[in-house]
């Protein structure tokens, strides 16, 4: 089975601050990481590969040259190949243009039986690229995958996380799946894995290698226009109680009733 995992390098939002004047992210000195739910998608693909020797996992990203550091991490986890799609023409892409471009890159790689993505990237939180990608590729999709079992050749059983409970679905490949963090715990990297990741070659694609033109990608092909960004004010501060547990439970009960929570 051939699997392509779409990954993104994102600023570690746990450490991001917002510039109070420009309302944009201060990226300076913020470490870049592999988007957490993409790591879940990669981990699950690697588990499929562990069960089915001969399967192949390709990590694909669209991003600046610095994203190679993240691809090395994907290789160290166990991906067979890593592909970086990098081009000035793709800069400034919104989710629509990104999906256009990545779909084209997947075609350039000869497609795959399983396209795995993370539910959303922590820098944008849109959760749109995965579903749009499936549409562009004309593939069925299951989002919010929290459990996956391979049944027979080309048949998967997945659990789709819902707000209350989950759905169990059977799907045939080729298919696009999006992973949520409940799916698995990504593996730790071994020293050998990291050393060997730095001996492998990262395949670099530019827009010339794709079946799209500069007009289909980047800022020009992005219908999303940012009107204004701002930091939401936290108007209601939390309340902190420190006293006898029994008393606090009573207080909590009253407070929740007052707010009509219970």
């Amino acid at each position, binding site marked *: 089975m051939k699997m392509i995992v779409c990954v993104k390098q994102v600023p570690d939002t746990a450490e991001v601050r917002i510039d109070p004047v420009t309302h944009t992210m201060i990226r300076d000195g913020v470490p870049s990481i592999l988007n957490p739910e993409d790591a879940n998608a990669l981990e699950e693909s690697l588990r499929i590969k562990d069960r089915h020797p001969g399967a192949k996992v390709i990590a694909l990203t669209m991003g600046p040259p610095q994203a190679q550091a993240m691809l*090395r*991490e994907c290789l160290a986890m166990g991906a067979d190949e890593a592909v970086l799609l990098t081009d000035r023409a793709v800069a400034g892409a919104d989710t629509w243009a990104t999906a256009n471009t990545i779909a084209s890159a997947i075609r350039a790689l000869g497609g795959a039986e399983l396209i795995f993505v993370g539910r959303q990237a922590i820098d944008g939180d849109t959760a749109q690229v995965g579903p749009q990608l499936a549409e562009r590729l004309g593939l069925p999709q299951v989002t919010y995958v929290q459990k996956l079992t391979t049944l027979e050749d080309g048949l998967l059983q997945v659990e789709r996380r819902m707000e209350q409970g989950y759905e169990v679905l059977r799907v045939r490949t080729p298919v696009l799946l999006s992973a949520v963090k409940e799916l698995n715990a990504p593996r730790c990297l071994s*020293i050998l894995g*990291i050393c060997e990741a730095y001996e492998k070659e990262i395949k670099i694609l530019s827009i010339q290698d794709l079946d799209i033109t500069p007009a289909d990608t980047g800022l020009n092909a992005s219908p999303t226009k940012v009107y204004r960004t701002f930091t939401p004010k936290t108007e209601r501060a939390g309340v902190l109680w420190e006293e006898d547990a029994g008393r606090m439970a009573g207080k909590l009960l009253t407070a929740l009733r007052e707010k009509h929570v219970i």
Partner: protein
Amino acid sequence: MIHTDMQKLIRKSVRDFAQKEVAPLAAQIDETGEFPDELYQKLAKNNYFGITIPKEYGGTGAGYVVMCIVMEELARVCVSTTLHITSPNTLLGLPLANYGTPEQKKRYLLPEMRGEKEGTFALTEPGAGSDAASMKTTAVRDGDYYILNGRKTFITAAPVADFVVVFAVTDRSKGTRGITAFLVERGTPGFSTGKKERKMGVCGSPTSDVILDRVRVHKSQILGKEGEGFLMAMKTLDSGRIVVAAQCLGIAQSAMDEAVKYVKERQQFGRAIGNFQGIQFMLSDMETKINCARALIYDTAQKKDLGMNITKEAAMAKYFASEMCNDVAAKALQLHGGYGYMKDYPIERIFRNARVTTIYEGTSQIQQIVIAKQLLK
């Protein structure tokens, strides 16, 4: 020193592993003295036993800068864990990799790398510590066999070891050139280990005597050549010292982290104690010393990776870093006041763990002797 991208990724991944897999167990390991086998297997799976050992013998060949990164990051959360890693990477693993026969590598080194067997290095004796060459353990030839008699003391991992590299005198008249290393397996008649020592720190690394009572071993169990055991041990010491220095660095860093956290929280005289200049001076001294050690350690490790001689540098790194981590841990405990003396705070364990580092793998005084010898030669 500035790390490469690969080294940075290794640091990040070891830190991640340390936080997720080791830190939650550290207090329990210290308290019970039991090192979980599951954790041992995870260390093997991440190749932590074979960082300095070449790939063809089951290691990674990643070298000493990487080894120091791993030691530093793991020592920050659990020093006992690092004791399980030093031996396969240095005192035990290196002689096996450099002098072992193909058969010995297959039987001892490869399983050690995979975490299937744990070995140990037994040099010290009750009457022979710093002056290891004055050892009393003997090996007397008997046809194709040797008969070993004697007692080794303070041997790390002896209570759980599957095999031990034992140093014994084969020819007293030749002095240090009459000492030979033997691979002795647990289960060989006459081989036993003593009771587990009750130690001040590094409690998750069991220590005991190794007792040899007319133990008969075949000559094929000699590691290296007859009479070359002591020189072999001395040659691996440089590597061992730089690795212990990195362990000290991790200990000091953890003490520093705890100190900084605490002085920001603890309020006295109406403000956080970190606001007092007297305390700031202490913190600055601690931080400066830690970074002096860091610079010396990684510089030495890099020289080692480049194939340069590091005898003096490794001794200086071990000497400075071990004394430094005791100083920093003591100051960090002082900054905690009475709370630092209680087992509820991590600094209590850090302080106890620091203490052994100026003693094992050559005391500070022995490092000074090595440094001076290099200076005056």
